[in-house]
């Protein structure tokens, strides 16, 4: 009998090693796997490369800076232009203690989609004529210049969904989808935090947002109420 349910988020991360590359789903507060991030904080794993839309903005990821677990981060939003408030991540970045690669958000998600879909890269207008172009191949198609962007994959993906069954089928809720279903396709080990685990069949097949084939482990957790204060 297939059973992907793990008892605790700490158990679900039992084999996550130092130096791993990890994708984190979520957009600010929406669909962010806060319990798995807190378990990663407790685990103390070091020299991690993180991949997430944002860090230090209404998400739990900034806790990974408390004991300097991050060596590198790939994000679309991490450093604010306004100096109103600094995250720990931003402070460490400014001291040169963590590396940051900023990626346009549409390119970020499409690179992950390509990584999960067996696509060797894609062409986009986004970034042409900007610093994003540096070091990349420009491909002209029918007289229009595009940047060649390459796929992105990870060792682990930590994601959040609303409900799961023991087969790993996931149902999402509202804007909690965001990067989660895409990242579920693009990592060797995919771990989903959910609010509820139900019997197979209870999630209507019409409502399955991520088929269980993509998901290795599920763990039920109480949602962490997080809210970005701007």
């Amino acid at each position, binding site marked *: 009998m297939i059973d992907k349910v793990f008892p605790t988020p700490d158990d679900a991360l039992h084999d996550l090693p130092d130096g791993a590359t990890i994708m984190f789903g979520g957009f600010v*507060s929406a669909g962010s796997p806060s319990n798995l991030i807190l378990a990663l904080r407790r685990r103390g794993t070091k020299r991690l490369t993180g991949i997430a839309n944002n860090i230090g903005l*209404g998400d739990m990821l900034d806790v990974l800076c408390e004991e300097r677990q991050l060596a590198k981060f790939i994000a*679309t939003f991490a450093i604010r*232009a306004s100096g109103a408030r600094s995250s720990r991540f931003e402070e460490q970045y400014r001291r040169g203690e963590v590396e940051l690669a900023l990626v*346009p958000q549409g390119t970020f998600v499409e690179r992950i989609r390509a990584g999960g879909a067996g696509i060797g890269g894609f062409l986009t207008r*986004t970034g042409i*004529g900007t610093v994003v172009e540096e070091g990349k191949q420009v491909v002209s198609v029918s007289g229009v210049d595009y940047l060649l962007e390459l796929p992105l994959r990870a060792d682990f993906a930590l994601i959040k969904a609303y409900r799961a069954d023991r087969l790993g089928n996931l149902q999402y809720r509202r804007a909690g989808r965001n990067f989660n279903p895409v990242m579920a396709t693009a990592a060797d080990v995919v771990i989903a935090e959910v609010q509820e685990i139900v019997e197979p069949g209870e999630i209507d097949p019409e409502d399955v947002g991520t088929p269980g084939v993509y998901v290795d482990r599920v763990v039920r957790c109480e949602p962490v109420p997080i809210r970005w204060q701007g």
Partner: protein
Amino acid sequence: MVQGLSRELIALRVARELREGMVVNLGIGLPTLVSNFLPPDEQILLQAEDGILGYGPISEADFDPDLINAGGQPVTLLPGASFFDSAASFAMIRGGHVDVAVLGGLEVSERGDLANWYLPDRGGGSIGGAMDLACGARRLIVAMTHTAPGGRPRIRRSCEYPLTAAGVVDLIVTDLAVIEVHPEGLLLTEVAPGVAPDDVQSRTEPVLRRSPALREMEL
């Protein structure tokens, strides 16, 4: 001393550009205020990068962490709203399915180049969805103050800050003026109440052509 429009009135003027049936993405900051001034009798679909089409006013009541706009603010849903993942969201944006994007600006050049993500003075900034929106939206409106704190013109011959995208801006709405971007240069079409065209020009680096129909903004 020239008294320009408040941030709210800039947003109100931008809202006048929006029409029934349009799909519109509002950027973080000043553009977000546009949602407060949408024409009440027209159906305008607001798109949020995090995967909502058809969200409604910002509401602090009954906060749901899974129901936020791209600025992290809690929003409501209007009848007919839909959710989708980030890949679909940016396919919508890149694929030309968003009629209008309203973004904030740090600098706009006379060729319609936009710089709005990195502030060299602070040595910081993030790209977010701005580059994709700037390239992908059918029409790009930039809403910003005409000059930076200290009086430096934001509308320039060339942008000095790192670009968000080149040659993409269609309309600039500031506290002083409304300016269209055309292949032959910038066209001043409206001035804020009490602001003279010369006041606008003296705070703008490139030369503005003045529209024969140049008028005071109706607010």
